[in-house]
């Protein structure tokens, strides 16, 4: 019995330690001050000052979904629609299930002058996206780590178990955990890879003529406005090849867009 208690304590300690070590620590004290200042400015409707305070924390090399979200709100209220859209997209990259950011992003997008009819997506693609974004990066990290622990436990039962019953349950556990690890790992990796290189950008110049080729003299194909989310495919020198949601393609200068 004493042995079992010891095992239980070790398990409990591990169960607490993993999430704790994966989640972030408290921000340094001087950043905490400017975060508080940002919130205070926002409450008092000093949106430009709030944006400056949040932006300063970003400049110090720290980020979080909530920080991007608040910064996006400050930009939105400060009438800077393109940057607020950029911030909301960034927040959603860090935490895809941040509903507030989703709502505000939709609201901001609704005020853009460009109306882009998105191409219809296959339902399989939509399902895949939902699965990938079913959990936040922290959730995926925890679930894959948990699957690793269960798989190891199952292997221990399978290899070291004295009774046939233990070995049989061990086998079941190994199979289930391996399956879970494979599934969760694939989805988590897809989310991670998208976040590392989203290949998306927000137009930040108020009027941008999209060119047919990466040169200043190329034909103007169409006109887009600030705030539009574009897919960036390729890059040649100071030119980026962009694709709109409706499939239109062309080239714009890198200074006209802000990549996510």
């Amino acid at each position, binding site marked *: 019995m004493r042995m079992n208690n010891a095992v239980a304590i070790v398990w409990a300690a591990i169960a607490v330690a993993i999430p704790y070590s*994966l989640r972030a620590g408290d921000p340094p004290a001087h950043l905490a001050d400017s975060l508080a200042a940002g919130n205070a400015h926002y409450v008092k409707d000093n949106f430009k000052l709030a944006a400056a305070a949040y932006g300063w924390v970003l400049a110090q090399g720290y980020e979080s979904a909530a920080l991007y979200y608040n910064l996006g709100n400050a930009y939105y209220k400060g*009438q800077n629609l393109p940057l607020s859209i950029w911030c909301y997209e960034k927040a959603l990259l860090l935490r895809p299930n941040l509903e507030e950011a989703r709502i505000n992003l939709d609201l901001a997008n609704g005020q853009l002058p460009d109306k882009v009819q998105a191409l219809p997506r296959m339902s399989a693609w939509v399902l895949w996206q939902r699965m990938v974004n079913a959990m936040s990066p922290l959730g995926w990290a925890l679930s894959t780590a948990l699957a690793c622990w269960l798989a190891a*436990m199952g292997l221990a039962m399978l290899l070291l178990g004295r009774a046939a019953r233990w070995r049989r349950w061990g086998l079941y556990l190994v199979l289930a955990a391996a399956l879970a690890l494979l599934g969760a790992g694939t989805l988590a990796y897809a*989310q991670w890879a998208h976040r590392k290189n989203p290949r998306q950008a927000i137009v930040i110049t108020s009027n941008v003529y999209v060119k047919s080729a990466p040169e200043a003299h190329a034909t103007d194909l169409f006109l887009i406005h600030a705030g539009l989310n574009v897919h960036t495919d390729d890059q040649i020198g100071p030119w980026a090849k962009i694709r709109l949601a409706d499939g239109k393609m062309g080239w714009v200068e890198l200074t006209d867009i802000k990549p996510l």
Partner: protein
Amino acid sequence: MVSKAWIPFIVMALASAAWAQEYRFAVEADKTTVTLGGVVTLTYRLEGGNPTEFKEPQAQGFDYASYVSQGMEMRQFGSRFTKAITFSVSIKPKQVGTLVVQPASVVVSGSRLESDKIVIQVTDKGQAEKDFYARIAQGLYIKVSLSKNTVYVGEQVRLTYTLYRNASTPIANLEYKTLPEYDGFWKEVLVDRQKFQLTDELINGERYQTGILESVILFPQKAGTFTLDPFVLHTRIPVPSRRRTNPFFFDFDDFFGSYNYLDYDIESPITKLTVNPLPQPQPSAFSGLVGKFSFTAALSAQQVEVDDAITLNATVTGTGNLRMLNPWRLQLPLGLEDYPNKTHDNVSTKSGVMQGNRRFEYLMFPRREGVFKLPELSLCFFDVETEKYITLSSGILSFQTGKSSEVVGTNAPTAGKGPVVKSDIAFINNDIQYIIPDLSRLYPLGYSPFLSSSHILWSSVPFIILVMAIWLYRRYGPGQQLGPAYGMRHALILAKKHLDQAQKHMVSGRENLFYDEVSKALATFLTQRLGLPAGEYSRDRVEQALQERGFTPPEAQAIGQVIDLCGFARFAPGTKALVMHDVFIQTSQAMAQIDQKLGA
């Protein structure tokens, strides 16, 4: 004999074939002396075949003034026709001196033929010729006028190319040579090239014919200094041919006699336009308009019935790039439906500037009763006069809907009576969600919990523990020679089990099974207690091991006999049950004796 008669014919056939292979490729120039700026036409002539490729000479010391044109010539020499393919190209020498045009080549029937070199003397224009051209330039030129030399991005500027011809300068015909393309500008044409016509005008007392070649309004799309494309006309100037010796002193009034024609290009002067960027920072609401504008917005009525149409007209009037203005996206209050807006333009360029108005018409239908407040529309543009961004606002527009009998009663929920009509919860106004005040968790930029170092560590720890557990099990687990204490206890339990089994078989009288179990019990017990390797279990080895552990030889032999007894007792005579009982007792006693002597 017969074969010899054919010889002359064969010879003739061969000869004609050889003649057919005789190609000639020669070059001619229309003149061998030319003044700088003049043009020489080279004609390459190939006789006797069809070329598959023509390669013109390398342009060294001259420019090509035309593309290569291919032609065919038939010539008659007496009764014989020859066919020749010709290639003509015009060249324009670049400097004074002797110009050697390197050979051109053609490929005929797979072999390459080269022409001769051709030498052309290029002389400088004489003073007389220079004067002549200067005189023409004075009387025949294109003037470029820009309404402004420095503009802002998006600000309109008028550009006009005008042709001037002194009445005393004769020209034969005019054609376009190079036309401006206006790269980097949006243009609005004021006077089209098609409508070109000359009118008489008196300038400084001299009679001139003038005509606008092209007039456009340009809207620069980016900042920088632009050199506007030149407008080049090509014309031919008639020169009386009777003074061939010096064609440049001629009397323009002499209309009698024949003329030669001189090629002449009228080129507009180089003109630069400086485009300044708009001042930074640009307001985020900047519409892109540059110029001077006013803005009004009005509703068609102050009060309408529910479901009746109401129109919002937003009109921007002024001078500037009106056509680049995009419609506003209305954020309509709940219960107000809108239809795609219409754009009405009343833009004129007649006065040489783009001015007028652009009106956006929004058709809306109120679907509920009450007061509708429309969001404020604002127009932000760059005023080129004050050089500042100006924001004009419509003010808040509102209208009211009166009672509409069809809607009341069917949709209005009435308390207590009848079924309550449920409706979706709808937003009354749009606003973003509030900030998240708790920002205590921050990550370093780019950090992701998944695949972070601690994630990888925590995912691999269980497997490390597993490997260690397996190693420990192998090292100290049951049945291992290297774990004496645990191994022996396990073996003795096993021996006891065999002995118990044997006792059961003894009671039920199953002889063979009994002896098997009792032998196993003894063997397991002895190998474990005496620490014998598995393969060394025999009576001699057991007796030896017992003596090493302090048993006297007779004691050891007595135990050894038990081993034999277990092996052979089943063949011994006597009552089976009694023999079995005897073997069981002796085995148990032997084991007890060893336990006693060696300690538990």
